[in-house]
């Protein structure tokens, strides 16, 4: 490139630079709100198609109409949730530009490919959902079943590409950055040659099965408490619950792996998880408590556990928050409580799952205790809380960086000063959407009785 052009480009980038940041915190809350709405919906996009296909495959094997009825009703629920997932995802796509134009403007060439590929997953998902939902009566049963397979695959590839972007934001590689410009960009390396995203993908994928599984099971469990408990309901409860319980057991170990990856790659985030003010040899874990002045007050300490968990040695040194200047630290209590919430719920769900699996292994039938079903009713909403808490852990824990140690969130934010109005509008619309979706789900489930 000729120098003149270089200068021109430098001027362009300077013009794009950080806007006025009056509304940074509203922008962050708006982003958070939009994720909190989108992510529970996509849990269903990830896991629900496979469950429906399993039930339909039972129908193909046995010809038992019960399975067909169940798969069909579920596919209608999937359609409604998918529509809500599509629009909330669209909001997110707009927001990446609307709220963080300097992030997209500067790094779009590095991470954008992930979303461009994801677009094709969405196409596949949308096309085959159209065929699957509206083809129940028209396609031959085998063709119909086959038309559902791409939906399940696209749910996986879609999350793979989005999470590769998130992995890159947490562990940015594949480019050089100087004076606000990226050069030497290798998007494939950045997204897929990145060691950091596999643990996130695995963890999120299992979380999708847990959330979809427990939420469905919790709906049918509350039906049981209300006296609806035929073979249809038992099947509808067992199919999602079986996979959710297995995933919960696995999730404990996958989550532990996530923690170790964070410990190696983002020590400050790990320090925020545990409220570790000072770099410590043989660092402890605290349960509950409150972080102030560089340490956790009123917490229950478990000595040396952090060193053991993070580095497999009770003597290992764990970096504290004091390793970085205070301007580079995330808001510790938010991250810490989000993390504790996720782990607490995850442990609880895993225990519940062990109860279920043990009953099945011994008695080959569903548990009979009413307490089990009461616990299931709460498990659904709790799994959603864990999902969102997990993302808060990751995203808020990455702060103040939007691209870890490269660009600050405050540098990425838009200069347009209409954020508060947008935020209020979006909140209202989402409230209406949530009420609407709840109403539809209620209607659809009532119709099934």
């Amino acid at each position: 490139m000729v120098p003149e052009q270089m200068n021109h480009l430098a001027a362009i980038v300077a013009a794009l630079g950080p806007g006025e940041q009056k509304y940074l915190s509203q922008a962050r809350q708006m982003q958070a709100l939009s994720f909190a709405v989108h992510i529970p919906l996509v849990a269903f996009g990830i896991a629900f198609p496979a469950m429906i296909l399993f039930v339909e495959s039972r129908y193909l094997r046995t010809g038992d109409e019960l399975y067909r009825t169940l798969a069909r009703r579920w596919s209608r629920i999937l359609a409604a949730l998918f529509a809500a997932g599509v629009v909330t995802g669209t909001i997110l796509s707009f927001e990446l530009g609307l709220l963080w134009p300097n992030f997209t403007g500067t790094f779009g060439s590095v991470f954008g490919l992930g979303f461009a590929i994801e677009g094709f997953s969405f196409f596949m998902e949308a096309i085959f959902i159209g065929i699957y939902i509206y083809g129940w009566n028209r396609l031959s049963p085998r063709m119909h079943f086959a038309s559902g397979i791409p939906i399940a695959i696209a749910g996986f590839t879609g999350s793979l590409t989005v999470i590769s972007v998130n992995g890159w934001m947490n562990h940015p590689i594949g480019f050089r950055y100087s004076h606000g410009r990226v050069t030497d960009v290798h998007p494939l390396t950045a997204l897929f040659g990145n060691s950091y995203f596999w643990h996130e993908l695995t963890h999120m994928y299992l979380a999708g099965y847990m959330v979809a599984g427990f939420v469905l099971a919790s709906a049918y469990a509350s039906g049981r408490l209300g006296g609806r408990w035929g073979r249809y309901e038992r099947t509808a409860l067992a199919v999602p619950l079986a996979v959710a319980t297995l995933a919960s057991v696995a999730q404990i170990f996958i989550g532990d792996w996530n923690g170790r990856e964070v410990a190696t790659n983002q020590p400050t985030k790990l320090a925020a998880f545990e409220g570790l003010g000072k770099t410590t040899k043989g660092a402890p874990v605290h349960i509950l408590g409150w972080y102030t002045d560089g340490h956790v007050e009123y917490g229950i300490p478990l000595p040396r556990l952090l060193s053991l968990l993070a580095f497999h040695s009770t003597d290992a040194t764990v970096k504290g928050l004091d390793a970085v200047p205070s301007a580079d630290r995330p808001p510790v209590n938010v991250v810490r409580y989000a993390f504790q919430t996720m782990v607490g719920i995850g442990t609880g769900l895993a225990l519940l799952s062990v109860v279920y699996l043990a009953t099945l292994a011994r008695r080959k039938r569903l548990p009979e205790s009413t307490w089990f079903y009461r616990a299931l009713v709460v498990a659904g909403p709790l799994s959603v809380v864990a999902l969102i808490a997990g993302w808060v852990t990751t995203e808020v824990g990455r702060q103040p960086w939007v691209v870890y140690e490269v660009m600050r969130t405050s540098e990425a934010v838009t200069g347009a000063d209409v954020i508060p109005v947008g935020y209020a509008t979006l909140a209202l619309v989402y409230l209406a959407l949530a009420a609407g979706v709840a109403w539809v789900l209620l209607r659809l489930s009532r119709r099934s009785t």
Partner: protein
Amino acid sequence: MHLYELPLLFALVGLALYTVLGGADFGAGFWQLVAGRGERADEIRDEAHHAMAPVWEANHVWLIFVLTVVWTAYPAGFGSIASTLSIPLFIAAIGIVMRGGAYALRAGTRTAGEQRRVDTVFAVSSVLTPFALGTVIGAIASERVHVGNPGGSLVTSWLNPTSIAIGVLAVASGAYTSAVFLCGDAIRRGEHALAERFRNRALGAGLAAGGAAIAGLIVLHFDAERIFRRLTQGVGLPALIVSVLAGLATLALVWRRRYEPARYTAAIAVAATIAGWALAQNPVFLHGLTIREAAAGHDTLVAVVVAILVGALLLFPSLALLFRLTLGGELRDSGQPSGGAPVRSRRRALVSIRLDARLSVAFLVAGIGFLTVANAQWAHAIGVVCFFGFILSGYRAALPADVVDAGE
């Protein structure tokens, strides 16, 4: 054609498809809005809803496609557009949420009254969204967006004669193409009376869209001189001519009740308009920013182009299948049961569920060993596979045998 123009070409193809297909979905919403009240109006609304239900999500993805290609391949341009035009983009996004929400809600409605209320939300947002997106195009075409965060006025960049003209044109042409498509649809279902009613609407909307297009050109003459000149005298002229001819041909075909060919000429008219705009605007991306300057680096462009080409290999056959089934009327939910169930009750040798459970436990133990105890990356990869093995092999054992006969 240079490498740095190729992604833009794809994005424009995507935009054209979105305008034709997505635009017709919005148009269907327009007809719901102006359907009025009463039973006959409900017929219109129902037809409009059912015709687009299986396809609107797929059609909507074209918009996502355009967004992601532009922000990947022309990031600096995208950043400036998103920041300067944040208001109309946000309005469009909210409109999309309300539309999708209304679509999801319709599944739960029971009475005609409930349905009408949901359809109204749907319809209002169907007009709002294309109008807002049209103003965005107008802002870019009249070079009111500069490079910057924001680069230009947040208000007049999209509330100006060109933007409003293109916004109106977007609504009108959507209504037109959608009425044309709905005529064909109604005929295919043997609803001849309904087809006549859509025919009248198509003719009316066609004239309105033509009027809007002419008015738009006049506005461009005063408000966006460069584009106007290149559109009427320069590189854009052939496209403009094609668009006018295709628009007229559509009117004539609808007049003669030849709805199938009219479907394609209507699409050509819309696509040619977009092509004309693109040719006239080339090589300017935004005010003071050429396409070449806006483009990302070489590797990114190559990766985007390859990804799109590979994706297209999957996408187009699937789309063809969807449209073949929809146009063939196969995706109508008529509520009749399908022809008999395929009973395949070949009882396979009973695979012992107990074996499954043991295998599953073995996977779990191996998974813990490789993922939790070991530290090497390759071990972690094996560990993750083991955990998935644990879930898959354990699944049958985790189902109560008296409820789901998972094994045969």
